């Protein structure tokens, strides 16, 4: 199955836009990703191991929060998991330049 990596997180995932993983559930797929890309882990999970509140995970078109089993929802080889983080850009001022 394929996991789509959004632009802001690609820098923590070897600059890849999608990664193929072999996993039985959505949670397993994300854990595999976090293990293979250690810098990605803190962007996906809290210290307690919960998914970060500013990250949403979709199995195909559905938010896993509303699927039976949530993170334990089973996946097929043909499925796509999307990681959708909150992004804020728009006005484009220099007033919020944290760089």
């Amino acid at each position, binding site marked *: 199955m394929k996991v789509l990596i959004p632009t802001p997180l690609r820098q923590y995932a070897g600059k890849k836009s999608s990664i193929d993983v072999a996993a039985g559930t959505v949670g397993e797929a994300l854990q595999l990703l976090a293990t293979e890309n250690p810098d990605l882990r803190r962007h996906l999970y809290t210290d307690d191991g919960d998914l970060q509140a*500013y990250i949403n995970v979709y199995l195909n*078109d559905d938010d896993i929060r509303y699927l039976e089993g949530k993170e334990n929802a089973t996946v097929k080889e043909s499925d796509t998991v999307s990681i959708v983080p909150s992004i804020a850009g728009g006005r484009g001022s220099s007033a*919020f330049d944290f760089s």
Partner: protein
Amino acid sequence: MPGILDKTPVATLSNDEILRYSRHLIIPEVGMAGQEKLKAARVLCIGAGGLGSPLALYLAAAGVGTLGLVDFDVVDVTNLQRQILHTTADVGRPKLTSAGEKLKGINPFVNVRPFPAMLTSANALDIFREFDIVADGTDNFATRYLVNDACVLTGKPNVYASIFRFEGQASVFAAPDGPCYRCLYATPPPPGLVPSCAEGGVLGILPGLLGVIQATEVIKLILGLGDPLVGRLLLVDALSMKFRELRLRKNPDCPVCGAHPTVRELIDYQEFCGVRGESAPIMAEIPEIQPQELKGQLDAGKDIFVLDVREPHEYQICNLGGHLIPLGDLSRRVHELDSSREIVVHCRSGARSAQAVEFLRQVGFQKVRNLRGGILAWSDQVDPSLPKY
């Protein structure tokens, strides 16, 4: 779907306006009734920048009767790559002065209402109550949550878009029975984790694409036409030119729009987003060196290892001849550094390098300092021939 303005009295059009809007009037789905709804509509645009530019320009051209604009900024030369409301001659002028002139120039029948202030918890509800629809084109999480909560509390739909590099998101939040932004993201990321446009960059046309999607949704809401982006998150990837759609649900436990809301009035959004309080003290502990001091020590032949933690494409724009390890690669490539040497770390403006210094100190480096203000400050204080970006 019913229009947002179905209960408000409609305005009448003059003969000049009828001629101006003739290409609308001959579409049966718009017609005189639709154009009068547009004239009666009051739309508030938060931000007159990347998204706000195409949004306000098209809404003005389309004949939206009252256009409110909230922005406190002045036009900067780096805005012109994408903020098409403003021109080179406007650099240094307030964005709302520039925007007002352009919008009136396109359509003198539009009543432009400028609010030259930062949107805050103190003023948002009063401003929002004077409008029918709010379009959020801001660039930071604190204002995003403020706009969302104020829309829920005042019952105004929030036509939303945001952008990052080549990607955009759009939706309509806080519509009757629809989800709000907090249903999607209950809390914001900690500051600095997700880069801002100023940090991460944005393709200039992208706010054009997303701002026009916002304008389309606003007009559909006013006219009561089609299927609005309520309960749907549109994801736009300009590189693959793919538009995907994800289903959004109203969260019954949402703290603002759920069955038992805990947020019943506006809160301190700077604090909610961790912008104040957390990040500043951490930064204060980071040892720093001023550009002039570094220049003096390098000129005196002192052994200092300059580490540049920007990206390779930034190094190509300008550099201080330092050793390049992008911040994201630092943990993997830390073995390239000699902890016995004195190290000065820099980036563009000093924030990424502060993170690098913090990380290096955690893994045992003791003689490591942050170049205060980064390569921008170096250009200002030491070498004005170095380009700023």
